[in-house]
């Protein structure tokens, strides 16, 4: 494809490769005349600007010369030294001159452009070449076998390469070897080439065939192989190019024959040694592969001879050809259509234009020399047959998901041994840039898995960089200790003992005993502003005259039993003590009144505090206290606040602190939030103060959040701990960071429910990866549960489902590509209520028990994960997504019976109504409302035939902890390595008993069993209105991504037990499911023969409870007590295999004989020999009990 054109009959030279921009020098040729017969000459420099679509080349500089030229060569000499920014343009003149020009000066329009000039040759200088190794060396060739080597640094005295060859002949070409810098070749029209060694200063070899018809017009060294060169013959009788190898210099290695008339010039591409250009008197320009003698390309050229052709050294696809028709044309070797050019160049391209040009400024137009040039072909031109080397990208490292980097390895081939086999490999690497971050993340995960939060906090305290950090961790740590409030007080600087001691010295021991904080709190209160708040009634005094004797009146009143009047009188007389004492006698009401009056009348500094203590109204104090005294205020709250308002009071103080102008105070707010367990506030407070984008600071935050949430879970059976927007954001940031570092399994645990599209994408990606991690173990599952979910994802991406059998028609049909927008709703819209749900009828029909498969349950995310296989990597952090394609809804497997998706019984409306349940309630970690939301989906068994099989693949219940993405805080708690042992160990950790650890101080909010009390306190529908909009897409995704798992045991085991505590690794799903229909179903009695099991186990637990001293153990036992319900339920339903029941009876016998070790052995035997899914709900609990019993020796 022609790129540019210059209307000159000129010889040419490209600027050197180092030079930018690319210039083309054109010097008036000594051998052609134009129509003016002018002998004036010029040297012009044009710029190749490919960004400019025009065919014209910009003239950058022109110099009117007295010489006409035979040869131009542009070397980079001097470019580095800045002396000659554009290098040196060397010209061979017709009179034997070798002239050095400074192209920079020509471009600048300078008149003094000649650097040096030397007339050494006796005739025209036809040959010039610049040494590519030492760019100051230039070889020139003229008549009479004259060859000179010019040193541009010492231009005056050229050298010769050796004695002149005999007979004397013209030198038509000189060329430096491209590999060996001291080797020079010269050729003459006679057909002989001579190779010179400058070190020896002699001719070393002559190359000539025996035809004697070679008429050398061109000589080029092979750019890569030092011993090879080509010679072109101008002779029409022998229009060939010979390729010689000096190692076999008797005859040419190859002869390139295609030109029909003599070859005028050749050019060998440095960029690709398999490209050799030649132009001939047959008007053709050919591009050869000299190694194969194949013509790769023929340029569409003019009808005129080209007498010179050159590759552009800088732009490997560009070449220029100078033709006798008065044009220098610049072509691209890459083919392509010139239509594009002609479109934009309609005025300048085309046969008409050329004739009207006046290239020489003569004021007259010239007719075309010959036929008008054919319009630059509209036909597409084929590119080179051989792809040029410069397109062959040898490297390329690309990132992939999960911080992976894919890189190529193409071992370089040496040209001499192309046959050597090469390993073409691709490396997939894991890029980890945040090592410290990952380490800390792993520590955190380990802590989550193993418990030991107090230790974790302690470590953090030790490692804390500053005092505040230390304090924060100390506060967090308190959550995991007994007497949290007391410890908080200590942290705030109030030690009871110290206070007592202080008070002693003051001499008011009694006061201290009752109100330990008061003396110190006085300081706080000192700063309390005098609030105008108390809406105290105006003293309505009894109408008494001053003159009357007060004592008398009081006496009178008392005598008449008028306490009120007496108190009034005392107050009036400012006898406070008297009035209070009287008021006490007068009854509670009067006392209260009196207190009120007292507070209105007294304006001491501590009144407010006393008032708060007495009236238990701390809100006022917190709202008005001086923020500098936040510590004291917090201490007061610690001491006095009722547990139900404790959190909100802490929050209140936190809010005030946060709003403070003092930055120090702002950060202190986080301490308040830690006390209150308000995670979201903590996050917002923290992010306000820190740069959350730095990975380590994000880790800092997440550590605190995780620990605090954990603490909240433990300490508060109820209470909102929803994943707020900010926390969600941070968690997703954290997750994506983890994912980017390749830690997908952990990342998944932190992916919260969120409606943001990007996050969902990440989630999806992580999930699918997770799938693959586990695929190998799940093939059997796959086979059972053919096909995939409803989603277009898995249906259309067999990648995600490599071994999934083809889908049934009913499912695939609506998922043809045109449907994808609707099938892939979640990233697009937040209202994907129309999401195609698996036909619910299927579930009902197949699984039986319609009451169970109510939409309500269906809305629950699918619980189980196949990752539960013990060796699965960190499965605890893999939410159910991991199983997504592997647990496709079975209805896909039976297309015949499955209704089309559009007819799914789940109307959008119903979907909306229940979908928020899972998402909304999902944040109720451990909350009473949660069991409903965690309810597993109905057994999806597509056909009854699959049920037994799915049952056999039933994953450990511990895995079915419900959707981790909904309840990340629970997901975190899951053991990373689900060996059974670890699960057993986890039991007490994971199950968070309702009793707050601060129970001794707190009033028993939610004490007992809050879950039992309010299992349905949060009807799903109630949440629908406000949740629907944002939650539904997520819901849709749950449906699509996490098809439900069938738990064969579930339908029958719906006990009334409601321990649906999320986070409990074992059997919670089952239990939570049980909790739903509890009201409708009455439990069957336990068969009499098995009643002994229950009695023994419960008795043992009671014994242990009696013997246990530390609260943690008690909690464990309490927990176990409840969770054994699962066992009793199974006994009621008689679903346990005889082997297990028999084993249990054996255990009971051992318990009776107090041989707990033996019972543990039996336990182990049962666990190892039974179906895990059958026993997972209670066996680990049982082990806890037995272990405790053994430990306590009851």
């Amino acid at each position, binding site marked *: 494809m022609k790129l540019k054109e210059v209307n000159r009959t000129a010889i040419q030279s490209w600027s050197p490769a180092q030079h930018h921009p690319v210039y083309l020098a054109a010097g008036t040729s000594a051998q052609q005349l134009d129509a003016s017969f002018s002998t004036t000459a010029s040297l012009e420099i044009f710029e190749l600007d490919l960004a400019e679509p025009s065919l014209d080349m910009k003239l950058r500089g022109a110099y009117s010369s007295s010489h006409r030229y035979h040869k131009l060569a542009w070397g980079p000499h001097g470019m580095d030294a800045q002396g000659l920014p554009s290098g040196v343009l060397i010209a061979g003149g017709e009179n034997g001159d070798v002239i050095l020009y400074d192209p920079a000066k020509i471009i600048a329009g300078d008149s003094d452009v000649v650097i040096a000039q030397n007339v050494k040759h006796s005739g025209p200088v036809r040959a010039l070449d610049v040494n590519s190794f030492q760019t100051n060396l230039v070889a020139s060739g003229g008549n009479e076998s004259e060859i000179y080597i010019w040193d541009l640094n010492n231009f005056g005295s050229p050298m010769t390469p050796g004695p002149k060859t005999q007979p004397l002949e013209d030198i038509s070409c000189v060329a430096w070897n491209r590999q060996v810098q001291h080797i020079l070749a010269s050729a003459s029209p006679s057909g002989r080439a001579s190779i010179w060694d400058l070190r020896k200063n002699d001719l070393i070899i002559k190359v000539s065939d025996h035809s004697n018809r070679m008429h050398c017009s061109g000589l080029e060294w092979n750019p890569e192989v030092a011993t090879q060169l080509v010679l072109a013959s101008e002779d029409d009788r022998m229009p060939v190019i010979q390729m010689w190898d000096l190692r076999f210099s008797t005859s040419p290695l190859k002869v390139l024959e295609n030109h029909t008339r003599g070859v005028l010039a050749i050019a060998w591409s440095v960029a690709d040694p398999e490209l050799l250009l030649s132009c001939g008197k047959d008007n053709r320009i050919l591009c050869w592969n000299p190694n194969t003698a194949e013509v790769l390309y023929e340029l569409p050229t003019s009808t005129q001879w080209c007498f010179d052709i050159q590759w552009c050294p800088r732009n490997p696809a560009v070449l220029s050809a100078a033709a006798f028709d008065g044009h220098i044309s610049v072509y691209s070797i890459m*083919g*392509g259509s010139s239509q594009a050019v002609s479109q934009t160049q309609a005025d300048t391209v085309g046969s008409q234009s050329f004739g009207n040009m006046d290239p020489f400024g003569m004021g007259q137009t010239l007719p075309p020399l010959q036929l008008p040039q054919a319009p630059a072909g509209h036909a597409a*031109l084929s590119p080179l047959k051989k792809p040029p080397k410069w397109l*062959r990208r040898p490297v390329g490292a690309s990132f992939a998901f999960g911080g992976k*980097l894919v890189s190529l390895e193409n071992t370089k081939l040496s040209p001499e041994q192309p046959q050597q086999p090469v390993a073409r490999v691709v*490396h997939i*690497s894991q890029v980890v840039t945040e090592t410290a971050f990952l380490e800390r993340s792993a520590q955190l995960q380990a802590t989550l898995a193993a418990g030991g939060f107090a230790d974790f906090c302690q470590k953090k305290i030790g490692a804390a960089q500053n005092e505040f950090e230390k304090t924060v961790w100390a506060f967090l740590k308190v959550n995991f200790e007994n007497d949290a409030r007391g410890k908080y007080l200590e942290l705030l600087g109030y030690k009871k003992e110290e206070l007592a001691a202080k008070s002693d010295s003051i001499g008011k021991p009694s006061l201290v005993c009752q109100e330990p904080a008061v003396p110190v709190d006085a300081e706080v209160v000192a700063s309390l502003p005098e609030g105008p708040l108390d809406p105290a009634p105006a003293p309505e005094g009894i109408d008494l005259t001053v003159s009357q004797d007060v004592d008398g009146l009081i006496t009178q009143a008392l005598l008449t039993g008028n306490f009120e009047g007496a108190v009034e009188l005392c107050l009036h007389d400012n006898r406070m003590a008297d009035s209070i004492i009287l008021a006490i006698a007068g009854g509670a009401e009067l006392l209260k009144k009196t207190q009120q009056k007292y507070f209105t009348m007294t304006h001491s500094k501590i009144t407010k505090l006393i008032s708060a203590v007495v009236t238990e109204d701390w809100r006022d104090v917190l709202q008005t206290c001086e923020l500098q005294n936040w510590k004291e205020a917090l201490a007061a709250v610690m001491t006095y606040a009722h547990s139900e308002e404790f959190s909100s009071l802490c929050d209140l103080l936190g809010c005030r602190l946060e709003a403070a102008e003092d930055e120090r105070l702002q950060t202190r707010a986080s301490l308040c939030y830690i006390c209150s367990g308000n995670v979201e506030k903590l996050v917002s407070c923290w992010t306000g103060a820190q740069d959350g984008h730095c990975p380590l600071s994000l880790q800092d935050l997440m550590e605190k959040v995780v620990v605090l949430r954990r603490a909240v879970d433990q300490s508060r059976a109820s209470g909102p701990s929803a994943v707020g927007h900010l926390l969600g954001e941070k968690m997703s940031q954290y997750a994506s960071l983890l994912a980017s570092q390749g830690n997908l399994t952990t990342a998944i645990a932190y992916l919260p429910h969120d409606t943001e599209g990007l996050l969902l994408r990440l989630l999806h990606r992580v999930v699918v990866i997770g799938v693959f991690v586990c695929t190998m173990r799940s093939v059997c599952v796959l086979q059972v549960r053919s096909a995939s979910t409803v989603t277009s994802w898995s249906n259309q991406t067999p*990648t*995600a489902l*490599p071994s999934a059998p083809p889908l049934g028609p009913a499912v695939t049909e609506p998922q043809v590509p045109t449907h994808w927008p609707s099938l892939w709703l979640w990233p697009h819209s937040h209202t994907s209520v129309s999401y195609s749900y698996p036909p619910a009828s299927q579930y009902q029909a197949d699984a039986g028990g319609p009451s169970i498969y109510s939409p309500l349950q269906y809305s629950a995310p699918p619980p189980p994960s196949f990752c539960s296989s013990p060796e699965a990597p960190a499965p605890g952090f893999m939410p159910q997504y991991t199983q997504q394609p592997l647990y496709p809804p079975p209805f896909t497997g039976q297309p015949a019976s499955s209704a089309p998706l559009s007819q799914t019984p789940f109307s959008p409306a119903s979907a909306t109504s229940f979908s928020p349940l899972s998402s909304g309630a999902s944040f109720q970690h451990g909350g009473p409302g949660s069991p409903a939301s965690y309810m597993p989906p109905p057994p999806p068994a597509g056909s009854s035939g699959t049920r037994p099989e799915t049952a056999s693949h039933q994953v450990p219940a511990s895995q079915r902890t419900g959707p981790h993405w909904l309840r990340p805080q629970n997901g975190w708690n899951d053991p990373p390595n689900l060996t059974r042992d670890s699960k057993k160990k986890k039991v007490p950790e994971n199950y968070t008993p309702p009793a707050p650890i601060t129970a001794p101080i707190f009033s028993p909010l939610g004490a007992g069993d809050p879950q039992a009390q309010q299992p349905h306190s949060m009807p799903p529908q109630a949440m629908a209105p406000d949740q629907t909009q944002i939650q539904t897409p997520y819901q849709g995704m749950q449906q699509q991504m996490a098809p439900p798992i069938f738990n064969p045991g579930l339908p029958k085991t719906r006990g009334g037990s409601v321990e649906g505590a999320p986070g409990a690794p074992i059997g919670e799903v089952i239990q939570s499911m049980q909790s739903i229909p509890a009201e409708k179903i009455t439990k069957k009695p336990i068969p009499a023969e098995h009643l002994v099991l229950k009695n023994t186990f419960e008795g043992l637990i009671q014994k242990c409870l009696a013997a246990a001293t530390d609260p943690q153990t008690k909690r464990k036992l309490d927990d176990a007590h409840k969770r054994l319900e699962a066992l009793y339920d199974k006994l009621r339903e008689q679903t346990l295999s005889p082997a297990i029941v028999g084993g249990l009876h054996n255990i009971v016998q051992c318990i009776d004989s107090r041989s707990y070790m033996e019972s543990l052995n039996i336990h182990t035997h049962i666990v190892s020999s039974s179906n895990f899914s059958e026993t997972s709900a209670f066996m680990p609990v049982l082990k806890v009990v037995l272990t405790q019993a053994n430990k306590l020796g009851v």
Partner: protein
Amino acid sequence: MVSVINTVDTSHEDMIHDAQMDYYGTRLATCSSDRSVKIFDVKNGGQILVADLRGHEGPVWQVAWAHPMYGNILASCSYDRKVIIWKEENNSWEKMYEYTGHDSSVNSVCWGPYDFGLILACGSSDGAISLLTFSGDQQWEIKKINNAHTIGCNAVSWAPAVVPGSLIDQPSGQKPNYIKRFVSGGCDNLVKLWKEEDGQWKEDQKLEAHSDWVRDVGWAPSIGLPSSTIASCSQDGRVFIWTCDDPSGNTWTAKLLHKFSDVVWHVSWSITGNILAVSGGDNKVTLWKESADGQWACISDINKGQGAVSNEQ
């Protein structure tokens, strides 16, 4: 730390030119001068040849995975002037579409963000860029930008889908009005930005800094900020990072990442957009990261897939 977790022997008979993982990082597509495209299943450190796709008649330069929501689709481009779109149906890979609208080597293919639909940009040595949009029913709508880069377009890369003027998602139910943009680099040493307006592709920006062929361009994934970032690398050894903080997208500033001694062939952003992998001559791969003060620093030097990571933070 950069450590090899899998080495796939592709058994290609000639130079490999590109290797790309799919969306999930579980499949690897490679292409070679041996005219073939291969797909490997590489999950769990394995390497199972899934497909050996034959159809090109010249070296295959690049492969690109479409977003999986459209199915398992791979595009390949070749010196043979063809773009082939392959699709996996029923566990076997078939040609979905073959595009022959270029007159010269097709050097680069890149799928647009899924938000834009199934749309493929192709850059060719004929200077043109083609945009193929799947319009359903096996139909592809073709738009061509002629003479986008004189003597050749070497690389194309899509801008992430960003709704103009707002980072907040559009109201639900309403199709977001995305502005489609991509960047290209070519033999005219230019980096050009293209924008679709009223269904027509128009040159939006022309970024000049390179002094030789632009070998590759990469538009960084969106990290939720309104700014845009593009990396470009060139035959001249330079890698530039172009940034635009201006919401209208008109003011781009170039920062020189580094000047290498050899041609730089390829740039690739990490999924999170904070690390740039630069592949230069002699198979030298380096990782670069922007420090807090906005300076780009080399954090790793990778050889045969291995390397240490220096963390200066």
